């Protein structure tokens, strides 16, 4: 029988109360629940009637009381262990995380770029060119000595000035002035150019020339550069350079290289 909740509760209260007046009123209003009410009254009566009794003996405190659960001391001990474990785990986690990103140690500078030996500075590049151009190009004025140049070799300043030289010669000169080892990959198309770059970063000059003449300088690290014939973004430092370089078109009378 599906009884609405409020009537359900009311019937239980009436079954427990033994109030005849209230019971008559309920039966008059809800005759369909008479049998249900009678059943509940009997159930409650039987339940109360099955109550056991026993004459009390004299109270004698038990020597031992059986322990059916964890004692307070055990619970407190386990709680302390748990808290300590949590604390240690938090400490270990923080230590682990901070150890992965240690503060950079402060290393006093032990090496600085100092001026090269005196004999080198006494022979300015202008007096003794670093290279002998293959062609009949005019001398290429070298740049400032290595001693005065920047820490990053790729950014060392170079000076190139020639009315007629080849692209390969210029690349070699850049390497010589900046202290870089520049390797030109096969397939590189050499050209005759005139060039003016004064005190410009080495990689910037190479990038500039590469955009103009179709090659890409790739920084290999360890002061090495690989020149690949093809345009692209090879240099990490897209450093430009202010300068001029134009190809010289040789005349058809054979003076071209």
């Amino acid at each position, binding site marked *: 029988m599906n009884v609405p909740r409020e009537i359900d509760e009311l019937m239980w209260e009436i079954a427990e109360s033994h109030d005849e007046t209230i019971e008559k009123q309920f039966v008059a209003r809800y005759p369909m629940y008479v049998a249900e009410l009678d059943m509940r009254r009997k159930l409650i009566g039987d339940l109360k009637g*099955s*109550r056991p*009794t026993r004459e009390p003996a004299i109270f004698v405190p038990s020597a031992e009381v059986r322990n059916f659960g964890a004692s307070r001391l055990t619970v407190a001990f386990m709680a302390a262990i748990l808290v300590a474990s949590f604390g240690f785990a938090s400490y270990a986690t923080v230590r682990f995380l901070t150890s992965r990103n240690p503060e950079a140690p402060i290393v006093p500078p032990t090496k600085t770029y100092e001026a090269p030996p005196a004999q080198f500075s006494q022979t300015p590049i202008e007096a003794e060119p670093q290279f002998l151009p293959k062609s009949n190009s005019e001398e290429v004025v070298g740049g400032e000595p290595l001693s005065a140049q920047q820490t990053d070799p790729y950014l060392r300043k170079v000076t190139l000035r020639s009315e007629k030289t080849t692209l390969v010669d210029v690349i070699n000169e850049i390497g010589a002035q900046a202290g870089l080892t520049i390797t030109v990959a096969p397939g590189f198309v050499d050209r005759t150019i005139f060039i003016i770059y004064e005190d410009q970063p080495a990689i910037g000059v190479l990038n500039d020339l590469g955009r103009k003449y179709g090659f890409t300088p790739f920084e290999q690290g360890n002061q090495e550069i690989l020149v690949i014939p093809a345009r692209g973004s090879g240099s990490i430092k897209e450093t430009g350079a202010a300068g001029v370089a134009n190809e010289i078109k040789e005349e058809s009378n054979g003076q071209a290289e």
Partner: protein
Amino acid sequence: MSAAHDSPNARDYDEDAILVERTLSGDQASFQTLFRRYHDKVFAIARGVLLDSEEAADAVQEIFTLVYRNLRRFDRRAKFSTWLFRIAVNRSIQQARKIKKLRHNVPLSDFEEAPFHEDGVPATDPNIEVAMSRLNPTDRALLTLVYWDELSLQEVGESLGCSANAAKTRLFRSRERFRAVYEEVSNR
């Protein structure tokens, strides 16, 4: 509503407080008075939960031992009886879960020839005890407090550590479960 749900007797409350104070002062006879006063109800709780008279008798002694040893922890602002009943309920439920003693396999024929309760009280309906044995200890404790000890909902709530409204809700559910099991047992 029946008298079972009336307010507790204030005079008993005051007398219990006096007996507790005397016991703490060294008067052992005062505790024996408390023991005799509440033994019946505590036994009913233990018997209803544990379903065995001997187990219940042992439990009663242990319950009063616990009360006697921890009497100084009793908060005098509360009622001694509800504090006692709370210990009795918790202790009995703990013991019942440990023992896990069920009687639902007892054949009904065992009751037909000897319909008397083992405590000497005639069993009006043996299905009652079978149905009780099929309930969980918490349900048995609740029905015992209400129908055997005739505590008010307020007292039941204090004994179970909940509000009167919560006790009412729990009673409703326990009663429904008891009824469902009782009908199942009766219709076999």
